[in-house]
């Protein structure tokens, strides 16, 4: 085991009233990994993401990230430590343009006080220009530059998913959580997405954890896979190991009667 993992989750449990959504999750993710998280519907995958990003409070357990304890921290604090995410049901700022969506995400990169903002001093201009520059650079990476001034709600579905990834990238994350990034995409869009994810990992050095139902995509893309079922981590390993794991097959197809 890597002595210094990027993310290490220990004994994590989440209860919603009497329902145990996650129970005793232990897992680590190394720097630069591209990891998949799979499991049947209702297994607790999104709850796991919500807990990592602070939208959901853990009942017990600990989340360590890059040397910081993120357990029970506010979502905005966790984002500043370098975890960014996308959502299963797209959550863009609908009445803002593509570029404005990214400028909002520049919040942490742009630095000036209320007063500077109101007086529009030189510092305001420099910081805003730097933010805009960064937003345009990210837009170039995901290939949405030609849509920069369109309202985000008017983008085709696949581009909306890409914009959400772009928005997460602007916050300069160390760990990127993608919640079903390929859902609803056609095969061509999925191929583009695959190469984008590979590029983010190899060229930008971002560690990626993704939830996906498209088994082909997960098996192709991820070198390490975690499997959740009924809130429990039932298996982990390479694609080949997962494919032949009895418990995983049972979880997906049901046990023999």
């Amino acid at each position, binding site marked *: 085991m890597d002595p210094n993992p990027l993310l290490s989750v220990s004994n994590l449990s989440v209860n919603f009233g009497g329902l145990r959504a996650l129970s005793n999750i232990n897992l680590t993710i190394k720097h630069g990994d591209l990891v998949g998280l799979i499991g049947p519907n209702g297994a607790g995958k999104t709850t796991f993401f919500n807990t990592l990003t602070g939208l959901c409070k853990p009942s017990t357990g600990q989340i360590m990230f890059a040397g910081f304890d993120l357990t029970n921290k506010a979502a*905005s604090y966790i984002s*500043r430590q370098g975890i960014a*995410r996308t959502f299963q049901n797209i959550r*863009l700022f609908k009445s803002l343009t593509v570029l404005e969506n990214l400028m909002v995400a520049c919040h942490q990169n742009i630095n*000036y006080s*209320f007063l500077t903002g*109101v007086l529009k001093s030189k510092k305001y201009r420099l910081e805003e220009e730097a933010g805009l520059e960064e937003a345009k650079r990210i837009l170039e990476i995901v290939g949405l530059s030609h849509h920069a001034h369109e309202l985000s709600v008017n983008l085709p579905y696949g581009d909306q998913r890409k914009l959400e990834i772009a928005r*997460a990238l602007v916050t300069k994350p160390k760990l990127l959580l993608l919640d079903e990034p390929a859902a609803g995409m056609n095969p061509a869009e999925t191929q583009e997405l695959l190469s984008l994810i590979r590029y983010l990992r190899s060229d930008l050095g971002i560690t990626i954890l993704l939830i996906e139902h498209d088994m082909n995509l997960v098996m192709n893309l991820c070198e390490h896979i975690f499997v959740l079922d009924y809130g429990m981590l039932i298996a982990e390993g390479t694609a080949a190991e997962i494919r032949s794991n009895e418990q995983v097959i049972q979880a997906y197809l049901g046990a023999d009667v």
Partner: protein
Amino acid sequence: MGKRNLISVGILAGIYLIVQLLVSRGVLLAYDLQILGLVCINIMLAVSLNLINGFTGQFSIGHAGFFGIGAYASAYLTVVHDMPFLLALIIGGLFAALIGICIGLPTLRLEGDYLAIATLGFGEIIRVVILNIPAVGGARGFSGISRSTTFGTAYVFMILTVIILKNFISSKHGRACIAIREDELASETLGINTTFYKVAAFTIGAFFAGLAGGLYSHFMGYINPAANQIGFMKSIDILIMVVLGGLGSITGSIAAAIFLTLIPEFLRSLAEYRMVVYPIILILIMLFRPSGLLGGKELSWDVLSSFYRRVTGKAQKQQGVSTNGS
């Protein structure tokens, strides 16, 4: 300062000079000037409420409470403590902002209808508290306030309010507020402290409402704790301006504040039918422009120049002259 800013300053100064000229010629009477002063104060109220309701998306209907706090606090300071008017005005605004923080912290955890009801309740609490303070006249109202606010003062404060709020909106802090309106959860995961910005927007809105209140009490020389002065009737008046002008449009709020302050005056000849015609006008506007006069749009030099280019574009194309964007 850019060319456009110079033109803006010129236009604003021009409006002021024209008003003064009309007054000196006797075209505008003292009564008309009072209406114009009220227009300025109402613009301050509408624009500051728009920051909370329109830009940050927190539906507050207790804005008149902050107006009342500013009106009474500053009047108390000038009348009882002989404080200079401007200083009292600022302190009145700051006091309203302080109460804004105290109300905002607990209530902004609520959303939608629940927030609206809570702010309505707090607005009424403020009014009832003022009603029961004998030092500021109680139910009789507070009279004998020096009439320190002139049309010019109100005009200058109105312009400052609009500029400050407009600049705030286009800064990263304003963008954070707009993001909260659009999707609070997503904003939080992008590193925006949503509680902080909601309370900040509420507090800034309360400050400018308090300022407007101080201007008002020193404009009329008298203020009383009636529902249509500092109570929920007044809150609704301000809310109508914001919704009619367009949630999230500063120019919309300005236009609606001017329109709604002036229209009862123009309808004066209709006598008692005025209160029938006024709501009919509101209903018609909301039917034909449900997102407000300007929707979320702003009227700015950029919009004007692109409109100008569109209008003149045809002629220039024929002459083969390319348009440039400067």
